[in-house]
């Protein structure tokens, strides 16, 4: 129904102006009153004054009326809109009932595009955007310390020592600052030990974060007394898992790391931690001597705690940094040996991932995935545009009829947009229903509960915005096109008349899709290539026939001396196992962690202005290099007896960097900077990739100590290591009173899991690119089919004029081929740019990776062939008689 602006309809009852309306009404009233008074003999001027007096507040009455009418006409306008929209929606749904295939195709395509984005966004949101699950998270900052002289290579955002932390609590611009440090613990439940992730926290940790206990109490100031039975607070998840939500838990004593501790409370369920890992128990820092066996909290050089602070209102992190550094400066003068040149950095706490430290690769990887899913969305949108465009063309007559019957073009465009929107919203609902399963999938995959991937209001908002944006992209242009042109053309036009301009639009869309999916395919190919290169890398140590057994907890060990004895005893027991040819002990197995770093000083070596003297090191037991199969190029390593912390073995990279061609063996260097602890270099080992396969060997050293520096036994076996794993598990795990055996893995397994993230990334991007590719193939198929169908009549004429069927076949194949070649060339050019952006994540893959490009091109050719084969065959089977008769 053609309508003007809806207020005009309303004006039929109220004339065009409610203001004039009410003025007229009041004027009539006043004149009636005056007339009546005059009739009673009152003089005119008195009558007028009296009429006004009796009327009262005319202006307000008039305003009230105008407001009433305005509000009413707004309501009327809105309801008219709602009515037309309702009409459009009903009309659309009726239309879809007739074109079910089209509707389902559009919805599925849109759902794929939106779904990829919704998934990536949900994960990104959980990692980076969602504020920490604590009170007023926007006030929180993280504090780091680092060595001012270490501008390169060193850790810019390092941990702090507990004594430094106690001094930093004086920073006036911080309302509070708390410290926490990881501590692996073993909790006894009946006869078994349960491994748990613990955190030693400052006594104000819970108060600073504003986290309450759901049961009992959190850790409080009273817990900072170092004596007595230490308090422990369980996380809600751990309480549920290990204690079956026992409501009587508070006050109970349990054995933790061989000590008795008291469970004082359970943290609130919302508090899932401030790191992307599961934490099970919180202990006061004062308990470190008791449950960790050593006391870090008095050592100003042991930088093992992380700091999180709450700002005073209206204070910036920069201000806190200034205040903290003036304190740190004073500490540097007071304790030069540990604190000289230390500086404090303060940054907003942000989300779960601390992007300053561990978040390094998380941000680019997230961006890559978001970009890739964005491409899928674009390809899907292009497909949708094609579909909607084609539907618009097939409805050209219907639209022309509506326009010629008087429908405004805007009205018809709105109708077409509504149709697309209805389908897109259907797709969004499908996506949200699917994304709601993410938490189930995440927990099945063992993702820490701290990573909350439940559908949030933010996800819904994001998905809705994406849906609307996509709908506008894919629907506006086709709707505009479908309503353009002369009405008479539309009415006169028969469906078989090809229109060249529109055919070009279809080709451009199909080409764009091919270009976009080629970019993604190349990215995926490069990631796969990078993974292959890492798998092929020679680690420099003997991966085969090696077992790593990790221990934790020092149950029963009273002193460091006893702990050492236990370690040696365990070593001997492992050595005695059948099939074992060598045993050593180290802080951690190769490829399982960054280990520690220290600043070295080498007499006679003058570092450059920006050169870092901060290098990684590890404490390892006797025969470490022999067991790992790393040859010693010079000197020896500690073996058998010989038990000191004064001898180090360095790698070739370190020897080369600091001594060049001279022999470092026998020289003395100091650890912990100038004036630190002197150690003697006794050997040079061949370079090996002990930290990560992707990282070229850098200078590093191993401090040798017979009892090792910790908890990983390295066991070299004669035969296949798998057969020995159960023996190790049984003999060392169950009968050993000293340690809790955490896990036993073969080195092959460790290598496999070190490539896990690279595998996951390559897999995810490959999956996404295949998604884009399959969408693009559908798009290409649809376009070629459509163009072929449009040309049926032309083919008939050609056949009638003597062309053979092979000609038609080649003609159609070539039309698909042209689209792909142009799209493919553009895609390859774009992929060079994408490859450049990807370089930081790649290991040993060139900017243009020839094998990848060739593979992608081959895949593309096959795919294009498949997409065009059907239409080409159909074209070659054209019957000239029928096509010519059809019109």
């Amino acid at each position, binding site marked *: 129904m053609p309508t003007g602006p809806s207020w005009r309809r309303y004006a039929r009852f109220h004339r065009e102006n409610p203001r004039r309306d009410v003025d007229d009404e009041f004027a*009539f009233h006043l004149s009636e*009153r005056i007339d009546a008074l005059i009739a009673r003999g009152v003089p005119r001027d008195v009558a007028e004054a009296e009429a006004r007096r009796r009327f*009262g507040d005319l202006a307000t009455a008039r305003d009230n009326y105008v407001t009433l009418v305005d509000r009413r006409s707004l309501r009327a306008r809105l309801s008219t809109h709602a009515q037309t929209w309702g009409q459009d929606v009903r009309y659309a749904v009726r239309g879809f009932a007739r074109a079910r295939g089209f509707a389902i195709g559009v919805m599925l395509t849109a759902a794929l595009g939106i779904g990829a984005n919704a998934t990536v966004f949900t994960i990104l949101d959980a990692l980076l955007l969602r504020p920490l699950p604590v009170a007023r998270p926007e006030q929180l900052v993280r504090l780091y310390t680092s060595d001012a002289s270490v501008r390169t290579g060193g850790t810019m955002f390092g941990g702090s020592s507990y004594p430094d932390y106690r001094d930093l609590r004086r920073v006036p611009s911080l309302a509070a600052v708390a410290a926490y440090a990881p501590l692996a613990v073993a909790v006894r439940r009946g006869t078994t030990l349960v491994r748990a992730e613990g955190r030693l926290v400052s006594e104000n940790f819970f108060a600073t974060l504003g986290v309450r206990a759901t049961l009992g109490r959190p850790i409080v100031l009273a817990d900072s007394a170092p004596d007595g039975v230490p308090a422990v607070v369980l996380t809600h998840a751990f309480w549920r898992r290990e204690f079956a939500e026992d409501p009587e838990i508070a006050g109970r004593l349990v054995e933790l790391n061989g000590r008795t501790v008291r469970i004082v409370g359970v943290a609130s369920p919302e508090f899932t931690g401030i790191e992307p890992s599961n934490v099970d128990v919180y202990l006061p820092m004062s308990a470190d001597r008791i449950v960790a066996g050593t006391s870090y909290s008095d050592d100003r050089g042991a930088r093992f705690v992380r700091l999180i602070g709450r700002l005073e209102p209206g204070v910036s992190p920069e201000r806190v940094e200034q205040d903290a550094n003036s304190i740190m400066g004073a500490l540097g003068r007071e304790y030069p040996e540990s604190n000289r040149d230390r500086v404090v950095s303060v940054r907003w706490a942000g989300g779960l991932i601390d992007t300053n430290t561990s978040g390094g690769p998380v941000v680019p990887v997230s961006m890559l995935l978001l970009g890739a899913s964005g491409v899928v969305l674009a390809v899907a949108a292009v497909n949708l545009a094609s579909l909607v465009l084609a539907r618009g063309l097939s409805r050209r007559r219907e639209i022309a009829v509506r326009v010629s019957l008087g429908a405004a073009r805007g009205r018809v465009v709105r109708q077409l947009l509504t149709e697309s929107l209805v389908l897109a919203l259907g797709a969004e609902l499908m996506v949200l229903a699917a994304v709601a399963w993410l938490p189930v999938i995440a927990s099945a995959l063992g993702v820490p509960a701290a990573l909350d991937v439940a559908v949030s209001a933010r996800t819904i908002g994001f998905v809705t915005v994406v849906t609307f944006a996509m709908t506008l992209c894919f629907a506006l242009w086709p709707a505009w096109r479908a309503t353009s042109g002369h009405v008479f053309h539309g009415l006169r036009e028969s469906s078989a008349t090809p229109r060249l301009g529109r055919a070009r639009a279809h080709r451009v869309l199909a080409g764009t899709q091919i270009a976009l999916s080629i970019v993604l395919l190349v990215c995926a190919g490069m990631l796969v290539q990078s993974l292959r290169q890492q798998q092929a890398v020679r680690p420099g140590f003997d991966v085969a026939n090696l077992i790593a057994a990790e221990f934790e907890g020092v149950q029963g060990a009273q002193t460091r001396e006893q702990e050492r004895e236990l370690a040696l005893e365990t070593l001997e027991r492992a050595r005695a196992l059948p099939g074992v040819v060598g045993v050593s002990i180290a802080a951690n197995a190769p490829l399982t962690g960054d280990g520690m770093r220290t600043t070295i000083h080498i007499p006679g070596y003058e570092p450059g202005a920006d050169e870092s003297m901060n290098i990684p090191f590890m404490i390892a037991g006797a025969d470490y290099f022999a067991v790992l199969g790393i040859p010693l190029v010079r000197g020896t390593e500690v073996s058998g007896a010989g038990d000191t912390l004064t001898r180090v073995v360095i790698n070739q990279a370190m020897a080369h960097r600091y001594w060049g061609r001279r022999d470092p063996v026998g020289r003395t260097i100091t650890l912990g900077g100038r004036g630190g602890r002197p150690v003697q270099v006794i050997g040079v080992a061949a370079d090996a990739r002990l930290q990560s396969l992707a990282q070229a060997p850098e200078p590093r050293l191993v401090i040798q100590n017979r009892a090792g520096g910790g908890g990983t036994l390295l066991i070299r076996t004669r035969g296949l290591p798998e057969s020995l794993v159960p023996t190790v598990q049984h003999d060392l795990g169950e009968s050993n009173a000293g340690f809790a055996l955490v896990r036993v893995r073969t080195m092959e397994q460790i290598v496999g899991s070190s490539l896990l993230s690279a595998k996951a990334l390559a897999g995810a991007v490959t999956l996404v690119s295949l998604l884009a590719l399959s969408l693009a193939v559908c798009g290409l198929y649809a376009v070629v089919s459509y163009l072929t169908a449009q040309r049926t009549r032309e083919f008939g004429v050609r056949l009638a004029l003597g062309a053979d069927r092979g000609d038609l076949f080649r003609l159609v194949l070539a039309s698909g081929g042209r689209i792909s070649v142009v799209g493919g060339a553009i895609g390859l050019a774009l992929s060079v740019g994408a490859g450049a952006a990807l370089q930081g994540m790649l290991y040993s893959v060139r900017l243009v990776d020839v094998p990848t490009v060739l593979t992608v091109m081959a895949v593309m050719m096959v795919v294009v062939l498949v997409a065009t084969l059907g239409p080409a065959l159909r074209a070659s089977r054209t019957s000239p008689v029928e096509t010519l008769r059809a019109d």
Partner: protein
Amino acid sequence: MPPVSPQLFQGTLDLLILQTLAWGPRHGYAIADWIETTTDGDVQIEDASLYTALHKLEDRGWVSAEWGLSEKGKRAKFYRLTTVGHTQLRSRIRAWERYVASIGKIIRPPAPA
């Protein structure tokens, strides 16, 4: 005795307007005049309040308005009771009677037995 203001009782003005219109369509001045003469001048309504109430009733759909010609041939806006208005009027009269009866019980309690 000074004129009574109908504003004393919540909704009384609405009731008066609706009842007045129950006799037939009238313009605003006629409503005011009717109420005044019928109560012998006891009830005097400020015109502004009358119109505000009238306009609200119109917005609620209890009365409808239409422009027409007055007895003297001037253009005037006439109000008419709608079906909804009729129903409202009946229920308001009942409520009013109950109200008066209960107030009456308080201010003229039955003599103790």
